[in-house]
């Protein structure tokens, strides 16, 4: 029997948010790339919530965009509502979230992929990895075809041995009834890769014309929309927006749930996977937070192509009849018709500590992975990893130095470092509290932090890069000017201060000092600043933030300096920890299992003490 044999540089397995970014990065960097998907209809599918961004996830998208990824541009083209969250809080936690038209999102991404040079889209299931002497050499598909390649990026999402469950109904399918991938896990296990089984869930979708919105609070988008992408013209995103709706569960809802808990597969033991604590099913919420008499329910449109609404906050795996009763107990949903039932989904993923921070497997050269396959959760987390994995697969083939973002450079760095360094027992979600240098890692300065890296990698155009350099110059010059422009306690000054309830000046000061006052800002003192030139809004924003939070920013920069020192101390890949007698046994085992790339990474592994780090430093410098 003769089978098809083809040659590529990069094979990407999966066409979800990670797979799309990986494939685009590979192809855009000039490598012959093929992307496999079980169904081309599922490209860039959003099988759960119909939005992109949100707290800390919005940061990821902005960073990905700065590096030359696609998600930001794609959502700018297809959003139907947008909101900057946390506007009343500090700039570090401002976060953009946009409601997507799911189908438009998927189609726009598909179009981009189709129009990308060097990129082939192929419907089919990859069943086996081909590895020789610890190097990846290709993949085999279900049809028996062989695709030889130099690198593989696995982005299988929730499809590996996927099983969807509600009540006692269980289907061996991927999300939305799509075909699962049932063979690849075995191939991975044969290669000695350690697997986990995780679980997640999604709420019901309800026909919009059966909802009584008069019993709900309307949630509008922002009046002035900020785009996700640094390349999008802000004028292009000022569109007419759709609303979301807010309602609440009540005691009756909770009673229905409590009365039927024994029929939940979660509690009956039918589901064995580990679920995320941050995205609990409604039955979990009712059990774990028994004292709360209501939970928020967020009704979000799935898109303009349908009247289906996503019932945010009420994911569930209860039986169909209970779901019906439970949703109907919520104000506004009394007569709602359920189009799609809520379900839980179980899938295989890896223990990500088997990866380097480049997202390459330590044991198999040329094998990379990203997304939910790595034990994360969320579209944005997936896309960010897919991008990094794709970039590094390409750089490796080109023989160039790989891209690693550290914890002081990007949320993406925090995300990947957490995945590959910490013990993960549930799908990992990004949170701003996970970033220790978050005052530096803001969504507003993602371009200033990462554009240059994207340019060096080759994903950011010359034009975009020049724009960045201009922005940098303008910011610097303006800050300099404000720091050195003195101002006396003249009458107009005192009057303005009074107007803002700010303490009057006793003696002269600088304009920058005035901006630092909490009640004032760059805009507020405009009338006192005679020499001010008109600057772009994003330059003004940076000037304001950098002057205002100067003290805090400098403190964090100092911590970063300390942090960088340890990151810079590299550990040789082949270090044999068994040789270091003075390490405690626990530390030795952990270090052996993780093989950290730097002293910094080693210091973050749980079970490795500061003394072990000292021992390691002494050992390394004696070699």
């Amino acid at each position, binding site marked *: 029997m003769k089978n098809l044999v083809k040659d590529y540089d990069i094979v990407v397995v999966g066409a979800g948010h990670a797979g799309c970014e990986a494939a685009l990065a590979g192809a855009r960097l000039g490598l012959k790339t093929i992307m496999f998907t079980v169904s081309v209809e599922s490209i860039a599918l959003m099988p759960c919530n119909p939005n992109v961004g949100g*707290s800390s996830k919005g940061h990821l998208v902005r960073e990905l965009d700065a590096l030359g990824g696609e998600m930001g541009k794609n959502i700018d083209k297809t959003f139907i509502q947008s909101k900057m969250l946390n506007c009343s809080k500090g700039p570090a936690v401002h976060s953009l979230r946009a409601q997507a038209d799911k189908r438009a999102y998927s189609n726009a991404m598909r179009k981009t992929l189709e129009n990308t040079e060097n990129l082939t889209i192929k419907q089919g299931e990859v069943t086996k990895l081909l590895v020789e002497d610890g190097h990846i050499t290709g993949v085999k598909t279900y049809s028996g075809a062989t695709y030889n390649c130099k690198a593989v990026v696995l982005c299988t999402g929730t499809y590996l041995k996927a099983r969807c469950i509600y009540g006692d109904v269980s289907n061996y399918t991927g999300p939305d009834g799509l075909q699962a991938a049932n063979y690849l896990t075995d191939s991975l296990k044969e290669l000695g890769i350690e697997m986990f089984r995780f679980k997640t869930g999604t709420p019901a979708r309800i026909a919009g014309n059966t909802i009584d919105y008069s019993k709900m609070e309307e949630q509008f988008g922002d009046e002035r929309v900020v785009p996700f992408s640094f390349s999008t013209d802000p004028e292009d995103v000022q569109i007419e927006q759709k609303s979301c709706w807010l309602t609440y569960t009540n005691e009756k809802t909770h009673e229905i749930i409590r009365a039927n808990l024994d029929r939940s597969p979660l509690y009956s033991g039918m589901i064995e996977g580990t679920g995320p604590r941050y995205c609990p099913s409604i039955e979990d919420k009712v059990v774990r937070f028994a004292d709360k008499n209501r939970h928020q329910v967020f009704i979000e449109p799935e898109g303009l192509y349908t009247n289906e609404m996503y019932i945010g906050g009420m994911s569930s795996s209860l039986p169909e009849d209970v779901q019906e009763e439970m949703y109907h107990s919520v104000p506004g949903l009394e007569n709602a018709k359920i189009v799609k039932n809520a379900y839980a989904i179980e899938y295989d993923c890896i223990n990500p500590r088997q990866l380097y921070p480049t997202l390459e497997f330590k044991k198999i050269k040329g094998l990379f992975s990203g997304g939910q396959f790595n034990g994360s959760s969320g579209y944005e987390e997936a896309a960010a990893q897919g991008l990094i994995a794709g970039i590094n697969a390409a750089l490796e083939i080109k023989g160039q130095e790989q891209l690693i973002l550290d914890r002081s450079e990007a949320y993406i760095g925090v995300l990947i470092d957490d995945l590959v360094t910490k013990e993960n027992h549930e799908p990992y979600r990004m949170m701003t509290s996970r970033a220790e240098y978050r005052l530096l890692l803001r969504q507003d300065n993602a371009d200033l932090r990462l554009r240059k890296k994207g340019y060096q990698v080759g994903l950011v155009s010359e034009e975009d890069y020049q724009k960045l350099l201009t922005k940098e110059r303008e910011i610097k010059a303006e800050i300099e000017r404000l720091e050195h422009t003195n101002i006396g306690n003249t009458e107009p000054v005192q009057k303005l201060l009074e107007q803002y309830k700010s303490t009057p000046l006793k003696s002269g000061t600088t304009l920058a000092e005035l901006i630092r006052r909490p009640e004032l800002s760059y805009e507020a003192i405009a009338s006192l600043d005679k020499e001010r030139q008109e600057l772009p809004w994003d330059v003004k924003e940076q000037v304001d933030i950098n002057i205002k939070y100067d003290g805090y920013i400098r403190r964090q920069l100092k911590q970063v300096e300390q942090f960088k020192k340890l990151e810079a101390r590299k550990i040789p890949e082949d270090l044999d920890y068994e040789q270091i007698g003075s390490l405690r046994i626990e530390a030795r085992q952990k270090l052996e299992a993780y093989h950290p790339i730097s002293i910094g990474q080693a210091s973050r592994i749980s079970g490795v003490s*500061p*003394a072990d780090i000292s021992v390691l430093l002494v050992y390394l410098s004696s070699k």
Partner: protein
Amino acid sequence: METTIAAISTAMSASGIGIVRISGEDAMEVISRIYRSKGGKKWIKEVPSHTIHYGYIYDEEELIDEVLVMIMRAPRTFTGEDTVEIDCHGGVFAMKRVLETVLKNGAEIAGPGEFTKRAFLNGRMDLSQAEAVMDVIQAKNEYALRSSIDQLKGSVQKAICDIRKKIIYHIAYIESALDDPEHISLEGYPQELLEVVDKEQLEIKKLLKSSSDGKMIQEGIQTVILGKPNAGKSSLLNLLLGENRAIVTDIAGTTRDILEEYITLHGITLKIVDTAGIRETEDIVEKIGVDRAREMAQKADLILYVVDSSVPLDSNDEEIMSMLNGKKAIILYNKTDLKAAIEIDRLREKAGHPVIPISAKEETGITELEEKIKDMFFGGELSFNDEVYITNARHKAALEEADKSLDLVRNSILGGLPEDFFSIDLMNAYENLGKILGESVGEDLVNEIFSKFCTGK
């Protein structure tokens, strides 16, 4: 570029002279902030390397000690870094205060084995010594960890745990609200947090005071009473306690470990631990007691072995005597009021430790025992576990950091800064308090958020 570290680098004893060593880039900076020469004119930063200077250490305006300061600039120093050694004259207490002053002025307390580590990393030691250096670091670390936890009073541990619990709850609250702004509101929250900060800071200040008074950790000569059942151990303890009313007081409102008592003899503090009688036994509960006694004996600075002179020696006594090997011990030949079954001279010969005849019942021999302990201490035979001072200084530095962090939180609240700024400094406070308990932050916050607040879609 490394941090600047400091520690007491001589063993603490009653001799009263010891050295505080500072090493690192800022060593000269630190000493210039706290040193004053006799005439007040000498600019210590400018003096030539490897010279000694007479003068005083000041903590702001308070005179701490009269000292000799040795200035040694890199690279010809033990660590290869700028090094200052302060030769303190004012006794144990002053030395402690000098170290604290150094820490307050820019140095960090040295980690276990850190001077040696730096010497090695800066090429001041032969590469072949790597193995030995690594062993020293690990051994010292284990010792420090053990002593840190052993020495921390139960009540203090609890107080710190309580403060940390409060702080992490509030960080988690803020973070949940940032994570899920449409769900959790921070309306009016800053005012509430301000009250929490005030309250917890008060608790920290109390701990700081007790650490200054030396009451936070259990200082004193670790003294263990051993003996067979009914040898008279408890009577001895009662007698010592009864005669010496100066029991070291604990932090108010806390219960005391019933096994431990503090007494002061001629200004020397003993921490006395009474143990279960030692005999071979099959009884599990009793066995645990015996094992614990053995463990305590191993850690002790001084062992008081009570022998019932009216009963012949047996295998249990042999067992106890084996525990005295290599230890400072005094044997108490008790019950002299009864007919002797053991010859005192034979016992002295056999045990190889001083023997003092007493009668706990008749209350005789106690003065001799006290004299003996005093002689041993001032003769330099007995000393404190000097790690105690290091631990105390480390704890104090951590408390001060936590205190400062809470000050910053207050400033941020009063300055009207957004809530996300609060949690950064709250986290610093949490982290520093954790250092005292030997706990790192790890996943504490994420766990707290998920367990206390219902967030998520």
